[in-house]
């Protein structure tokens, strides 16, 4: 099952500011909807998204039910060195997903 779409430039110059786009498959159930017999549908959302660059956190976001389904988040980071840019999503009901992309910095 495809879980996430990640867009990280494969190459960058040292010191260049790069844009990273991420999209994760998730229904982001708000907890405010009701089913067709009026029963509340329990909340089921991603609550946190973290990005690390060779192990060091460079970006973190706290998400709330107002974030649309299949959360799409773009942000920037400075290309400091070659290595791995890793992503982690955590949320309700033990939701936990990870992703990663390699980058070459010259």
């Amino acid at each position, binding site marked *: 099952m495809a879980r996430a779409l990640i867009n990280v430039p494969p190459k960058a110059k040292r010191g260049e500011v790069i844009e990273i786009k991420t999209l994760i498959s998730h229904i982001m159930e708000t907890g405010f909807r009701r089913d067709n017999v009026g029963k509340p549908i329990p909340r089921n959302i991603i609550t946190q998204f973290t990005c690390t660059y060779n192990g060091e956190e460079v970006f973190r976001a706290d998400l709330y*039910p*107002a974030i*649309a389904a299949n*959360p799409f988040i773009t942000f*920037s*980071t400075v290309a400091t060195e070659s290595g791995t840019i890793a992503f982690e999503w955590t949320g309700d009901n033990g939701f936990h997903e990870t992703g990663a992309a390699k980058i070459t910095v010259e």
Partner: protein
Amino acid sequence: MKIVESSTMGHDRKGATRRALLYGGLAGLGAALIKIEPAAATPETMQRAIRQVVGEAPIRRGKVALDVPALVENGNSVALTIEVASPMTERDYVKAIHVFNEKNPLPNVISAHLGPRAGRAKISTRFRLADTQTIVAIAELSDGTFWSASADVIVTLQACLENLD
């Protein structure tokens, strides 16, 4: 999340696809300063949520550019981009960007934590709006100051739906 009241259907609006792009307080940039009249009564919960983040510190208008469509195609997914004017150096950077709304069931939308490694204080996401309302973005800087911008967004109901309730 569909709590769109019928009162939004006949709502008076200014130009369907004009963007509510706000720059405030930046000298010499030549950006037009668009004056937004505050909503008649900003709901308490949004103010309280903002105070929880900001504490007693004053919130200044400026530095924050909030890019969101003035009239959305669908309240279920609204594109949002926020950029904060900042050199993003080790000594002067944006610590966090917080987004709030006034008419959804909950006031918070997203809190993004940045730092000098961000390079640029710019984030994008897609969020939900239950009704026509004002949204507020607050930037927390490394020097402890808070800056904000707000935008009014109109939300209408789709003509062809899945259900009628």
